[in-house]
């Protein structure tokens, strides 16, 4: 059954349906509807909601709840996510599952409360101190949250690692029809590591302090192997009209929604343009890009930032294709028509570049 919901509220509903029993949050725009939804929904369902005194407290409550065996979640936006990074690092080091939602706003600093994609680096590079990664899921519609949220809780439990859902102010605030009927609660995992009291078993500990550098190195390699498994198994992306595309637009989240609109216009004009939308920003769909580079010579990265994911596209292609970029940082949300004009210009420039190369070869 379709319901009209904001992305923030749908995130909350999807989390509860995915088995989230503990939510800890602190107000920050543009994600407040999520915290408010959880206050209501978890209260009605006898689940645990705490409005914490800070984002730092919230992430540490998540850590405690995860250590005790619960499916726990917190959410925030840019500045608050910065405050959570210490806790996220501890979650990764302790190998504890958690889902963290970042409804990204314009930054840096206080920035503004518009939609932005400025937190890509922070999300995909671990974000906090130390040597770790987190899976980052970037949904592009309210309906997609019904797939992404249960997947998030499942992958967090599967790998015993914190996981980020990276949305933005537009996804959080806009209302779209959403149908939760297809959402299945992810199965529970055995959690022998959790703390329940040493009643029928020897005492257990959860800690990340490892004084012995060799043991710390061993722990880091263990985490690294886990991250390698994620890279092998958890890459997700969507393609749109890429089969014959000469130029592939790479965009994620709401940026990809805008790009899709632009691509539709360009196709009408006869330009062979397609879209690659990474759903996992980390692990990044590098192989998919490399595969596409066999037929497409040009990749056009569009981000609502001054250019962050473009680095990953360049790394993936390793100079094997031309990489173009257009970004609007600071919370500016461009219209598809604006993007289509820029893409068209780059498309025609690439064509004349290629014909000039052909002339030289003759």
């Amino acid at each position, binding site marked *: 059954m379709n319901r009209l919901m904001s992305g923030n509220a749908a995130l909350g509903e999807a989390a509860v349906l995915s088995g989230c*029993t*503990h939510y*800890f949050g602190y107000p920050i725009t543009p994600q407040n509807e999520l915290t408010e939804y959880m206050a209501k929904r978890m209260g009605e369902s006898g689940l*645990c909601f*705490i409005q*914490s*005194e*800070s984002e*730092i*407290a*919230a992430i*540490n*409550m*998540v*850590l*405690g*709840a*995860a*250590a*005790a*065996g*619960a499916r*726990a979640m917190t959410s925030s936006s840019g500045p608050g996510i910065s405050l959570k990074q*210490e*806790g996220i690092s*501890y979650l990764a080091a*302790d190998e504890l599952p958690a889902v963290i939602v970042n409804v990204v706003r314009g930054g840096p600093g206080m920035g503004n409360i518009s939609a932005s994609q400025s937190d890509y680096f922070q999300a995909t590079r671990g974000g906090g101190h130390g040597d770790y990664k987190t899976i980052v899921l970037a949904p592009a519609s309210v309906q997609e949250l019904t797939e992404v949220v249960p997947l998030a809780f499942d992958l967090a439990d599967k790998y015993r690692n914190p996981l980020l859902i990276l949305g933005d102010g537009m996804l959080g605030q806009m209302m779209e029809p959403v149908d939760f009927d297809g959402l299945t609660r992810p199965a529970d995992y055995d959690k022998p590591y959790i*703390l*329940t*009291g*040493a*009643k*029928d078993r020897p*005492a*257990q*500990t*959860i*800690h*990340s*302090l490892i004084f012995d550098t060799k043991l710390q190195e061993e722990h880091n390699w263990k985490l690294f192997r886990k991250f390698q498994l994620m890279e092998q198994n958890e890459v997700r992306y969507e393609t749109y009209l890429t089969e014959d595309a000469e130029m592939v637009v790479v965009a994620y989240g709401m940026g990809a929604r805008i790009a899709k609109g632009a691509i539709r216009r360009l196709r009408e004009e006869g330009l062979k343009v397609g879209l690659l939308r990474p759903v996992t920003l980390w692990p990044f769909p590098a192989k998919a890009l490399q595969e596409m580079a066999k037929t497409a010579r040009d990749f056009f990265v569009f981000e609502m930032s001054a250019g962050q994911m473009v680095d990953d596209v360049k790394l993936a292609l390793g100079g094997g294709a031309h990489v173009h970029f257009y970004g609007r940082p600071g919370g500016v949300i461009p219209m598809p028509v604006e993007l289509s004009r820029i893409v068209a210009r780059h498309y025609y420039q690439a064509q004349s570049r290629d014909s000039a190369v052909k002339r030289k070869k003759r």
Partner: protein
Amino acid sequence: MKTVYERPTLLKEAYFHYCPGCGHGIINRLIVEVLEEMGLGGDAICVAPAGCGMLLYNYFEIDVIESAHGRGAAVATGIKRVRPENLVFSYQGDGDLAAIGTAEGFHAANRGENITVIFVNNGVYGMTGGQMAPTTLLDQVTTTTLRGRDSCAAGHPVRICEVFAALDGTAYLERVAVNKPAAVKKAKKAIAKAFQYQLDGRGFSLVEILSPCPVNWKMGPLDACRWIDEVMVKQFPLGVTKDVTCS
């Protein structure tokens, strides 16, 4: 032959890493003695801090999780909200609870979280080498107050029990010491009472323990114990600050 003193079974066969004359070893032992006597070894979950108490899991034969510096009360909150049937307590130093973790401790207390905080006040940052703590006395010399703590530049020693007493969520707050046998007995009673209050669901309990740190105080162990009585208790008076006997 009558056994009057033996290793509590909840204390692992390990050497404490604490410095000579340090109070942490006594406090560690008191906690497990109380847990053992109350039959709570299998129910207890301890949140260890960053600081001198961070290696508790090497000594306690109970479930222990390490917390980031200052976040003990928030981590304990998370655990307790999942497992209300367990006895959940955090072990925190003065830098941990009264400086970096003030917000987490204050608000856990204010929510009346049904947890216990064992708060070790030795007036300095011990593990990092004796810097000024929020509880450092005025004129006390530390590695960051070379001419003694000056209130104009470095503020005043924080009385956590008195501050928390003003919060309606707190059920039991007592300040004790571990500098002489009679004081140690009182400290043990206070810990037992705090745990009992948690079992009874009365809300937030905290036992502040004045604890000697001879190495960082630059004193012999005996002088350190005397200094608690002669100087420290003037700023941090011993006794019950709050006791809400009805639930």
